[in-house]
């Protein structure tokens, strides 16, 4: 469903010359699975997911979503994904219903099927009591529900969640995770990025640990525990990253010397 090969993204950076945000990242994700991207802040998770949603273009490498190339067929890619991130806010001056309807129309849905679909989603996500409330007056939880409704209104096969629980309280975050796992059960291919270990542990079928734009490890939770010989995910995560930093430092001093 999603194939990422050698995805690289670099930016010109005034202070350090070129900044490599993503360094030859490769992974695959299948329908009916939640693929977790776990990494500290600034690891390159957002960059990777922005490339998958065609908002950014990769410097090199390829990525296909549902068989469409993000570089050459960005429009088709966008038709087949739903993208929720901490950076995709809801419109302040639009009600929940209008917002979801607007995006449904942008996805090319006809009026009648759209209405039926929206009634269904508003019912399932329990959004009916604030369907006419303007975005500016919604609580963060309500806004997040609207974002999810907006992302799934066209029933895409692929869903991308980028740090989607950031800033949510425990109850809302829990409900959100519940929704995500239901979507997986419906056969969606889901990419879920987070820096919170608990979320990754509970939700993800497979996890990739990313740091400084590079993949340090990948596998099921069990597989990762076995290969690293460490049961606690947080400890495992920390070990991998400090090991990388040590090597990195060594290389840098070797280069400088």
């Amino acid at each position, binding site marked *: 469903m999603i194939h990422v090969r050698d995805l690289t993204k670099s930016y010109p950076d*005034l202070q350090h*010359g070129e900044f490599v945000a993503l360094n030859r990242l490769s992974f695959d994700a299948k329908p009916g699975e939640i693929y977790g991207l776990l990494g500290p802040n600034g690891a390159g998770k957002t960059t990777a997911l922005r490339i998958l949603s065609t*908002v950014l273009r990769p410097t090199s490498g390829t990525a296909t979503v549902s068989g469409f190339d993000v570089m050459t067929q960005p429009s088709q890619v966008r038709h087949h994904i739903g993208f929720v991130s901490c950076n995709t806010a809801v419109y302040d001056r639009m009600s929940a219903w209008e917002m979801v309807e607007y995006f449904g129309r*942008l996805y*090319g849905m006809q009026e009648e099927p759209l209405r039926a679909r929206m009634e269904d989603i508003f019912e399932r996500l329990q959004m009916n009591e604030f369907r006419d409330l303007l975005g500016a007056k919604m609580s963060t939880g309500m806004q997040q529900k609207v974002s999810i409704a907006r992302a799934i209104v066209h029933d895409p096969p692929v869903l991308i969640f980028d740090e989607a629980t950031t800033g949510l309280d425990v109850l809302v975050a829990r409900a959100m995770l519940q929704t995500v796992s239901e979507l997986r059960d419906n056969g969606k291919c889901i990419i879920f990025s987070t820096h919170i270990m608990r979320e990754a542990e509970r939700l993800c079928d497979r996890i990739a640990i990313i740091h400084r734009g590079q993949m340090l490890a990948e596998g099921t939770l069990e597989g990762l525990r076995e290969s690293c010989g460490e049961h606690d995910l947080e400890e495992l995560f920390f070990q991998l990253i400090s090991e990388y930093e040590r090597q990195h430092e060594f290389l840098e001093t070797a280069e400088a010397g």
Partner: protein
Amino acid sequence: MNWFNVKLIFAREIRDQLRDRRTMFMIFVLPVLLYPLLGMSLLLVAQFVQEQSSSVLLIGSDNLPDDPQLVDEDRFREPLFASPEKRDLLKLEFRDEPLSDDDGDGDHMKAMAVQEMDLHGYDLVIYFPRNFDVRLQEFRDQLKQRDGPNQTPAAIPSPQLFFDKSKDKSNLAYKRISQVLRLWTIEIGDQNLAESKLPATVTRPFTFSNTDLAAPGHSNTSMWSKILPFVLLIWALTGAFYPAIDLCAGEKERGTLETLLSSPAERSEIVMGKLFTIMSFSIATAVLNLAGMALTGKFLISQFSGLGGMGDIGPPPMLALVWLPLALVPMSALFSALCLALAAFARSTKEGQYYLMPLMLITLPLTILPMTPTFELNLGNSLIPVAGMMLLMRETIQGNYGEAAKFIAPVLAVTLICCWFAVRWAIDQFNRESVLFSEGERVDVGIWIRHMLRDRGPTPTVLEALLCGVILLVIRFYAMSSMKPQDSFAGFAVSTAVIQIALIATPAMLMAVMLTSSPRRTLLLNKPALLTLPAAVLLAVALHPGVLALGKVVSDVFPMPSAQMEQINEMLAKVQADAPNVWMFLLIVAVLPAFCEEIAFRGFILSGLRHLGHKWQAIAISSIFFGVAHMMIQQSLMAALVGIIIGYVAVQSGSLLPCIMFHVTHNALAIADGSLSKNPRFEWLYSGAYQWWIVALGAGIAAALLLWFRTLSYSRTEEELWQETVDKPAQATTG
């Protein structure tokens, strides 16, 4: 482009803006309230100004003649005023003449006037010197006894007026009293004539009778034809600016832009949807303000005329209110696209606000220029963006429909071309990650310079190319003001060499060495394909008749003052005559500029601009720099056009040498043309200008050569390769 999506985005943005209280206030409430309020305060202020009186100190009233009287009781005599009320506006106070020995000399009186004005707040001091009446009487007596015309009576000492031009009240007092004194002097003159037994008509044997031929309802259009278009355009710009900021920078700030970008809507659809929204608000703002101003103006003027008139200002022509909105649509489109592209740059609404100033600075001269009386609608002026449209509106309001109709086509063409570029620019901005996702960087010149020197690419960046262009222009501007015209060959050669080598080639070469890792690639110092050299020379020869013909059209459209033209021709002729031989002259006028200008414009600047990703954009912008560097509009236009051809040769051949060959040939032919046209042997092909068939033949050969250049495989920059991959599928789906 999917127009359904554009419509969808447009409808949403409009609804969004209409739900914003600030927008509603700015666009709908302000014009409805603002103008009546302004009008009301104007009425109040006007009454205040009318009723304010001036206080005048008169020194030496004893020296005034008894007949004709200037002062009656404590004020100026009533017949000296146009209306009796005006008499009350000049309050008089009297002071005796100071007793001093110096007979009221200038400095003494001046000091006294200053003191009086400071201490007692007089607006004006008037002084009649001692014995003024006596001397006036003597003068009149002498007139009566005069023997012949040659005998002139002794002069009368001048009365003095002291006022302060830097103070409005003092100025007003001066204006009022001047009227009074003028009438009084005429009375004295008339009396003198009467006493000399001459009729008063001796000095004014006839009067001019004036008839205003303006059609009824058009007599006041002159002022309105300047003010209304100005108001309209300024509001169209302002009305476009704030929604643009909210729709771009505001969305970035609120985080909704990324939501929209990840939807299936294409960037071009997003831009068009937003553009139409901004346009709607721009038009609405302008029309409402225009209507508010016109209605208030009409009401005010009818009020004033009830109060005794306000000069020759009449109500605005209402027919104009129908024409103006028509002209408004393309202007709003242009302003909206410009604002959108600028607003896309801004990271936040606050940053966006800062961009209004530069935008205004560019637009204001273009809108103020057409308000000057000498600036008239003609072909040349109609080709100036914004200003041309203003002139068209001016003519339309004045009712000169025939004159206006002639220039609708060029004005519309220029406006639409500008529109198209602005829209392309806006779409380009939305395709740029660095613009959409730019983060705040610390401003540090040191870091920036280090970055420029450390992260050098083989060729300069777009920014460095633009910087080079601007630096060259600025240097050129300052050099121009300090260089004197030369008429000896040696002086001319030195000044040309300094300009070309030191001010054009050297900066470009220095920048190439410092800012790029491959100056050779930057300055296109490659060996070209051998055939490109004769092809470039032939191209210049073939284009020459066409260039000449076009140059004639340009100088007809934008005529140069003939005195200036003669001066230049004379100087060139002198220099040429002074040159030791024709080769030296050619070296200085043709070869040297070709080398130096090519290094700068086709070398550094074009190489850097090619990182834009569109080779034609790069060629066009480098040609604009090349044109502007020629500093004279007629030369600039031609240089820019020729620059496009040379730029194309540079891109296709990948080498500077064919460009230099073209440039040398082109310059040499331009010089040879002068001597050629005087030679009777060439008369068959040349009669004032080349025969049309030669021009056509040349154009045909040039087209064939350009087609040949097109078949050459040229090296593309990374950005151009990327743009090609993006454009291809788009073309496949639209085609």
